[in-house]
């Protein structure tokens, strides 16, 4: 198991955010997590990444519960590129943090720019890039970090609908060539069902899993065909129903 969560509980003071949650993800599996606002989805990701420690239950990434920070890459909703660094230096941040020299780190990150459709923008400042490009640079940075688990917290929420669809298709392709275990938190049921192998519907706070759905066409090459397929639409309705009932 790449990710194993058993009986997980967490609270901020009196406020219980997560209650007896179980979740398993095998290697290179993508799990979508959808749920109402403020249900503790983001807290769950922070727990998995090792940014928070659980109050109850056990939690392991790649077989170990310690050192999770070193095995997870966290990508928040806003791209959070550092404005004082170029696109390339932002992408190379994790390598630099690990003690690689500037030239070596830049060279390694630069090798991926073409594949990510970012060729020619290596020296651009983050403010000069479009929302989709910034998100790709941020994603490139997390991939270059070489972590086995990607924790994506509503990665495309800040983008417009068209760009979001393009980015979903692009991410599907990127995960095809460079597979990772993924935990994807999103508000968007369609996004979760398209990008994930399985989708967990979470209850309102404290978060528990109320439904588990298997996606019919995970990361299909033709996104438009996949999301309009009757099987996909049926499961999407099922998920929305579970969300409303919760």
């Amino acid at each position, binding site marked *: 198991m790449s990710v194993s969560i058993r009986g997980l509980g967490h609270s901020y003071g009196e406020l219980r955010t997560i209650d007896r949650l179980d979740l398993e993800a095998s290697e290179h599996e993508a799990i979508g997590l959808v749920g109402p606002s403020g249900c503790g989805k983001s807290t769950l990701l922070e727990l998995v990444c090792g940014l928070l420690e659980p109050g109850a239950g056990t939690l392991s990434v790649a077989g170990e519960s310690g050192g999770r920070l070193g095995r997870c*890459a*966290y990508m928040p909703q806003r791209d*959070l590129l*550092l404005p004082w660094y170029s696109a390339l230096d932002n992408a190379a941040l*994790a390598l*630099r*943090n690990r003690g690689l020299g500037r030239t070596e780190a830049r060279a390694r990150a630069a090798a991926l720019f073409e594949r990510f459709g970012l060729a020619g923008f290596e020296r651009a*400042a983050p403010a000069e890039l479009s929302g989709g490009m910034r998100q790709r640079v941020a994603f490139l*940075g997390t991939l270059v*970090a070489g972590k086995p688990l990607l924790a994506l917290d509503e990665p495309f929420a800040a983008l417009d609908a068209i760009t979001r669809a393009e980015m979903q298709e692009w991410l599907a392709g990127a995960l095809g060539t460079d597979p990772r275990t993924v935990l994807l938190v999103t508000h968007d049921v369609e996004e979760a069902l398209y990008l994930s192998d399985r989708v967990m519907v979470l209850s309102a706070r404290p978060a528990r899993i109320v439904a588990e759905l298997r996606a019919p066409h995970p990361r299909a090459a033709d996104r438009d065909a996949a999301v309009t397929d009757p099987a996909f639409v049926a499961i999407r309705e099922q998920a929305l129903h579970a969300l409303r009932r919760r």
Partner: protein
Amino acid sequence: MRRWLLPTLLLAALLGAWQLAASTGLMATFFGVPDFLVPSPAEIASSLWENRSLLAENAWVTLREILFGFACAVVVGLGFAVAMHLSETMRYATYPLVVASQTIPILVIAPILIIWFGFGILPKLFIIALVCFFPIVVATLDGLRSVDPAAIKMLRTLDASRWQMFRRLEAPTALPFAFSGAKIAAAIAPIGAVFAEWAGSSAGLGWLIQQDSGLYETARQFATVAVLSAIALGLFGLIALIERRVVTWR
């Protein structure tokens, strides 16, 4: 264009009105004092020219005090801000003292410092640094604390150590704030210098103002103030220039 034209026009209008009011004797009548105590801008300008070597000599003394005092304030201020940011104990322990340091009346402490350290440059540095370090500490500390918590999380999963977090995220975030603090400090540094010189000195623009007060040399006093303002403007401009060079991402 507008950046230079507008302040120039405003200044010209103010000086024009002053010139008119002073040269017609209107101001002197209004204040109920003899004419020679109310210099017109033209008289101040000629005093500026006639006393240029005297003013330059004393300006150099004051400029040195301001530059060194300001430099001390930057070093100590940044040091304090970083220490207060990194250590909660340090912050809780020193923040009230840092604020309290600003309530020390300079008029009271300056003569004491002169008694302790003599007539040299040291007590002046201390007083200028005392007034300048406060805005630098407060602004820089606010900057360090304004770091986006989500960015901290992201950098932690990107394997940043404490030092790397500081160097790559916190320090650049705080930099524009620190510059704001330094600009405020630059504008008030000459006030500190004048008070310090009044408490005991034998040269400097503050000293000159004090001498001229007894001599009723009001025109030269205004000329001296003009030089003092020019020093503050120059220091402010220099910092703004450095800021534009360093903070390129804004």
